């Protein structure tokens, strides 16, 4: 499976340029989309998931053009949106069956098998008879994962899937995703940098509708290796440092600001070199 995005652009009616000339290539395996809120990740994912049309550019899934062959793509597609509603007063099991029918799994035995398997996989089997509107956010998210996997998708799009999951469930979910990613393209958006490093073989950073960086996370980190320095500073000096150095990140350590800068040479002045992290890669792009 190969997904190619060519020069995709989308401008909303209110003038927001959600996507600007985005080009990406993905094949089987996990692909991470990283970016701040409002960067255009969800727009991109909705467009790939056939729910929205771009103004320009195209998306190819192998030889299929997504925009004009939506239903053929949908057959291969699993999609977990960032937010979704469910029919009131309906149990997880019934709704999964309903969605399975919509996806074309019309053989009743097959349908029952996969619904049960996925209920187990997402740890919802024991509550399958309970009404979905009584579910907690994490449980609803797990239901969302289950429904996305109903049709053995070849292209799985998951938009901020781990929001609301506790660490245990998140691990469980990541295991599930990496298992699936062996023969599936999994596009996965998040703003949690570490998730990408753990999971993804490829990634792209999107900001303000543009791809600002793409590649293998480890290689990207490697490129920055030896150029990152850090220093604990006084709060009042922050602006002065920002003027003199390329500050990519600021965080607190024991209540005091710690800044990371990028520099080809050792700046001394109390800075100590640190190991580059994906977070540094991310912020070096975003905070430019």
């Amino acid at each position: 499976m190969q997904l190619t995005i060519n020069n995709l652009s989308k401008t909303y009616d209110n003038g927001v340029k959600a996507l600007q000339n985005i080009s990406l290539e993905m094949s089987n395996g996990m692909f991470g989309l990283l970016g701040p809120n409002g960067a255009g990740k969800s727009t991109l994912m909705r467009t790939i998931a056939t729910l929205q049309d771009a103004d320009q550019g195209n998306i190819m899934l192998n030889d299929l053009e997504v925009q004009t062959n939506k239903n053929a793509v949908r057959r291969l597609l699993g999609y977990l949106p960032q937010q979704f509603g469910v029919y009131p007063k309906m149990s997880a099991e019934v709704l999964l069956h309903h969605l399975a029918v919509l996806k074309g799994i019309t053989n009743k035995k097959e349908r029952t098998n996969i619904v049960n398997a996925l209920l187990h996989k997402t740890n919802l089997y024991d509550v399958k008879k309970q009404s979905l509107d009584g579910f907690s956010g994490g449980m609803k998210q797990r239901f969302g994962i289950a429904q996305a996997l109903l049709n053995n998708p070849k292209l799985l799009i998951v938009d901020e899937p781990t929001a609301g999951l506790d660490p245990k469930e998140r691990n469980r979910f990541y295991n599930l995703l990496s298992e699936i990613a062996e023969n599936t393209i999994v596009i996965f958006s998040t703003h949690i940098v570490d998730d990408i490093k753990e999971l993804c073989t490829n990634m792209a950073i999107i900001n303000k509708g543009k791809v600002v960086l793409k590649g293998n996370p480890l290689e990207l980190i490697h490129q920055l290796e030896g150029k990152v320095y850090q220093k604990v500073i006084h709060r009042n000096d922050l602006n002065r440092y920002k003027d003199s150095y390329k500050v990519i990140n600021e965080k607190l350590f024991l209540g005091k600001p710690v800044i990371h800068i990028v520099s080809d040479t050792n700046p001394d002045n109390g800075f100590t070199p640190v190991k580059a992290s994906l977070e540094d890669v991310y912020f070096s792009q975003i905070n430019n």
Partner: protein
Amino acid sequence: MWYEIFKFELKYRVKRPETYVFFVFLLLFSIVGVDFVFQGVEIGIVKKNAPLIVAKTMGAITGIFMIMVSMIMGIPILRDFQYDTEALLFINPLTKRDYLLGRFLGSFVVLLFIFSGLLFGMMLGSQMPWHKEEEMLVFNVFSYIQTFSVVVVPTLFFGACTFFVTGMLSKKLLVVYTQGIVLFVLFLLTKAITNEYLQGLFDPFSLTTLTQFSKNWSVEERNLLSISLSNILLHNKLLWIGLGLFVLYLGYHKFSFTVLTKQHKKKKKIRQELPKTINESINVQIPKVLVKSDLKSKCIQLLELTKFYTFSLLKETSFWAIIICGIIIIAINSVSLGTVYGVDSYPATHFIIAELQEMSMYFFIILLLFYSGELVWKERNIKQYVLNDSTAIHNLIPLTSKFLALVNIYIVLMLSLIVTGILFQLANGYYELNLGVYFSGFFIEVLPFLILYTFIAFFFQAVSKNKFIGIFLTLIFIIINVSSAYFGFKNSLYKFGGKSLGIYSEMNGYGHFLQPYLWIKMYWIVFGILILTISSLLIQRGTATNLWLRLKRLKYQITKPVLKIVISFFTLFVLTGIYIFYNTNILNTYWSDAKELEFRANYEKKLKSLEYLPQPKITDVNLIVDLYPTKRSYQIKGTYILKNTTKKTINEIHIQKLIASHVLLKSIVFDREVVKNSQYSEFDYTIYKLKTPLQPNAIVKMTFEQSYTPKGFEDDNSDTQFVYNGTFFNNNILPTLGYNLKYELKDEDERLQFNLLPRKNKASIQDENELINARSGGDSEGINLETIISTSKAQTAITSGKLLKKWTENDRNYFHYKTQEQIINFYSIVSADYKVAKDFWKSSNSNTKSVDLEVFYHKNHVYNIDRMLLGMKESLSYFSTHFSSYQYEQLRIMEFPRYREFAQSFPNAIPFSEAMGFVLDIDNEEDIDMVFFITAHEVAHQWFGMQIEAANVQGRNFVLETLSQYTALMVFKEQYSKEKVQQLLDLQKEIYEEKRRKATHEPSLVLVENQDFVYYYKGILAMHKLTELIGEERVNKAIQRFINDWNSCDGKIKMNTKHYATSKDVLKYIKEESPKDMHAIIHDLFETTKEIKNQY
């Protein structure tokens, strides 16, 4: 603080489209409001913009659009819950009082704005050019505003309070939709209250109240008096405002401002119940599945989804509320069915079904409008569409299953109504349940109509931006489509949905109306399928986009299977269309209204000059009639003997063929040489010039052959004369002589359109041309009739005369009738599958022969045969004792299908409609025996109509109808108690006064034209008064002398003057028989329009 909420609510509403949509809709609707509400109701001399009329219209429109009140007032609180904003709102420092008050008043102000559309619309409407000046009063702004404030505002307030509270407490949108119905049910419930005051008091829309309020107003007062808040109207308004306040108070206390926290607790609880065990099922393998997209799997998807949506609708409480309301309404309304003159009919299935259809329409339309919106927008409303829309299902499948689910819901409602109907019948001890009629009544008559409009509703929902716009577009479409018929937009090939099926007769079922109905419904359903397919291509999927973009992307949607569906259904649509066109426009001639009007106008313009051209009279008629009921066709071979009864020679004989399709008149042969002149052949009018003129008293024999062979089906087939079972026609289908008045345009406006002067309903009482005419185009002064009729094996054919012989030949029944004495040239032929009840009557005078009595009836209609036979006997006795002897040796009653509702007398034969008494359920204690009375009236026509013919001028119906009413009353009086007679008179008086109020013109009895409220209802009252004044004996004596002098057979004066009798002649005998001091009162009764006083 409440003011902030109030302002917020107003600001919000100002931005909402429905605020304006509703306003504009009400405005537009109200412009035609008066014409809509009072359509078909003669408001008579009351002006169209009289305050009372305006008030009633406003009340009715408010009632009709209560649903808008519910949609505005039901949602303000609900909205906060729907959009989950309640959490944000309720943590603010806000008191419950401020919150509710602000929301309520804000919405109420918006509601008043919306309904001001009604006020302005009605004001605008009164200025519209289609009103005639004489129908209007001078425009008065204040009177409109006053009426609006008095009638509409309190109703709105009550609705606002109630709907606000129900919406707030139930928090369900569908409850908001359906509560309008509940109020409607309430309104209908008040109709069942017998106490007038209470009925007026409880009417939520104040319609009955207004009637009561103005009960004692004269016409001038009706035009002048304004609608003030006083008397019963005040009580009514106070009651409903009070109720509104009470509901608001209750709701205020019930509403919990901390709902959110409670809900939260509930959620937590569920979470705690969850098992904590992480089960080790993580290692379960995800099985491989086959994602299918073949036809079979599509069918499975369709089936599964249909089930899914059907059950989701069945779970709606609002649906069950509708069902229960429906059942209540039916139970109440079915109490009086098929009422004729205050007497109810047996609860036969077709009555029940008619009642069910009528009452349930409102519910079906509500289901259609709202549930279609609810279904189409279901996933979007709850934001589940993101899941559904990314699955590989084609739009057509969920849309079709939603469509089918709604159809299933209609079916469930129909079945429950049927069960209610059956229970009602059983409860009334009526066990002739006719399931077939129930089935066809709903599934053939109503369901196709609903299905068709559901297609439309789905289409509008698919292309609209939101549910409300969809609902309103659908509603507007329905209104336009229904009302387009009034503007002549009728052809079923382009008027969406075609026509309704019409009346069900127990004798004839749906008859020949069924076939075209089914074809046209099929044609439109195919069209509907196309519409649904197109809707599925245009409906929103994924992120919302506007319609224009969706149209641009349409090409990607048109896949091969879709194209196949579209092409095949389009072909089917065209083919059925061609077939229908072939039937209605090629095999038959399609007459548009305009074309027909023009034809009639031309007929009059070209031929009117020939109206009183001397023509010979028919003296003998010989007919061989072959009826083919299954084909609805006939063949007639006829012979007329024509005699020149004038004093001049006649050179030309003018023959008018019946103007109708598929009627062929051929082989017209005279027994002397003629030259045919076809210059008026476009009107089927042929002139035969006699080579040797017809001298006075000379005769000529004319033979002809006429046939009728209907082909295919017609679009607007209203022919009820020739049907499968229950054929009933009279001799006006046969060739007539000279100009026919009946083809002229009657309506004044239509005549004006063609520059024709208004025509009189009846000629003046001095009109010499018509004084020698007993009816328009009478063509005769009396005939001898001999007929041989054949019909199908199951049927019996009946006409006037004595049955000489009957036999069966070639699987057909033959009947040979011959009159033994002269009859008027007015006779009927009926043929149906009859049962017959026989009896005889013998006069006290032993010299006369006995009279054979027969009632021919449809096999189930056995209820009132004895009453008919009794009526015949008693009438014959009374009339032959007091007036003159009965002229025939037979008297027959024949039932005919209920398409026409009357009974009519022909020589020794009385066709009697199925609807007129065969199925009346007469309770001797409570009801008037109307069957007996109608029978007596018709038998009376054997004297007044057959023995005495009246001149075709003003007062003709006094001679024929009023005298029949009087004599029927006398027969009734002999048979029934004084109380029953009084009950009968009270009923006649009630009908008279009701019809009189609505009439534009009331002539005196002597000069009555076609005003039935005068010659029937005033007539009987005046004659009854006369008997009180001078006694029954003197009245009878006068009538006896009148018959003696004026009868068509040997009346002295009739023979001498050649004139037929007039009302003035009758009055002369009455005056002669009464004392001089009564003459003034008699003058008042018959020659003026003064009220009939109780005491003179």
